[in-house]
């Protein structure tokens, strides 16, 4: 297979084990590393030589797993320090192209940023995002964040007191650095608005923007904005 990659997954808990299984199913070569003997033995019954026993923050354990030829290292242990260290070493010492780290405690996110361990995934944040999405009066919902590219896509519900409802899209004076890309309307589904589209209360608007204008955009679509 042309896109067969070598991936090292650290931590054979529920996340790591299932991840390894899925990645193998997709045709990748995967090594899972686990430092708890019992967990290792359980997983080994299924993955056999695909799992190695050892503490992946010991450099020789990573080297034994062939880190120098890995296309990707994914650290999903239950310990943020371990995930940060393993990814930092993978990236800076072994020059692995792609790393992914799991954040267990969302308050540790700034540390991942500080050490350049990106991208990272936090289950808590993902669930919070779903909650935001499910509870529309939460205001602005992030659909996609690309911090490196300084771009994000957000969704916002236009409430009855939004200053922009009733306005033509062509007349909107959107904050610089933002662009209205789609409107979701009950009964009509989603569509790309034209200049003559008139926004209605109850519409959900999707916009692409520079993260720095997020507050401006929130105010623009929201009840306290200057939507004119």
């Amino acid at each position, binding site marked *: 297979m042309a896109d067969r990659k070598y991936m090292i997954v650290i931590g054979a808990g529920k996340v790591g084990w299932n991840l390894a299984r899925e990645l193998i199913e997709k045709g990748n070569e995967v090594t899972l590393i686990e430092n708890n003997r019992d967990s290792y033995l359980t997983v080994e019954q299924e993955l056999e030589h695909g799992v190695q026993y050892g503490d992946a923050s010991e*450099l020789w354990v990573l080297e034994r797993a062939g880190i120098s030829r890995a296309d990707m290292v994914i650290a999903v242990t239950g310990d943020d320090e371990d995930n*940060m*260290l393993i990814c930092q*070493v993978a990236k800076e010492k072994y020059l692995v192209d792609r790393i992914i780290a799991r954040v267990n405690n969302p308050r540790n996110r*700034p540390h991942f940023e*500080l*050490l350049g361990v990106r991208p990272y995934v936090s289950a808590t944040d993902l669930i919070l995002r779903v909650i935001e999405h499910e509870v529309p009066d939460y205001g602005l919902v992030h659909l996609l964040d690309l911090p490196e590219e300084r771009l994000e896509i957000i969704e916002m519900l236009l409430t009855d007191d939004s200053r922009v409802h009733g306005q033509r899209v062509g007349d909107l004076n959107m904050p610089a650095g933002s662009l209205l890309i789609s409107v979701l309307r009950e009964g009509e589904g989603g569509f790309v608005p034209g200049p003559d589209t008139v926004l209605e209360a109850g519409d959900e608007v999707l916009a692409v923007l520079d993260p720095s204008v997020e507050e401006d955009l929130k105010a623009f679509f929201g009840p306290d904005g200057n939507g004119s």
Partner: protein
Amino acid sequence: MFVVIVGCGRVGSTVARSMLREGHDVSCLDEDPEVHARLEVGLETSWEDAGGQFTVGTALETDALDAAGVEKADAFVASTNGDNTNIIIAQIAKRRYNVPTVVARILDPLRAEWYEKQGVKTICPTNFAIRMLEEELMGTAGDG
């Protein structure tokens, strides 16, 4: 000098007392409140009366580091029982708080060697033990 010591086991607490005795300001951070008693071993007074500061908290929590006064620290010692914790918090002290002197205790010689090269000042007790054992053994071998 104002020294913040994170992780007050045998090493951290002893260094904390010595620094205090030398007349420095010392602030200790440990997640275990019982560690306070260890700080007072051999002291006539309480740790606080002797001039020390003690904060209970997890080393990675910014709130705990702030409470311990890291932003004013002249020196920072990472001596918890976790190598990875020490490596990470030493980098946080250096990069986020700009502490001028940062030292991390790292038991694993391989990790210590690499991070030393990356500019993290490390102390590796394991290397001392290895060297001393080797010297003892080689010395014996030489005699026989």
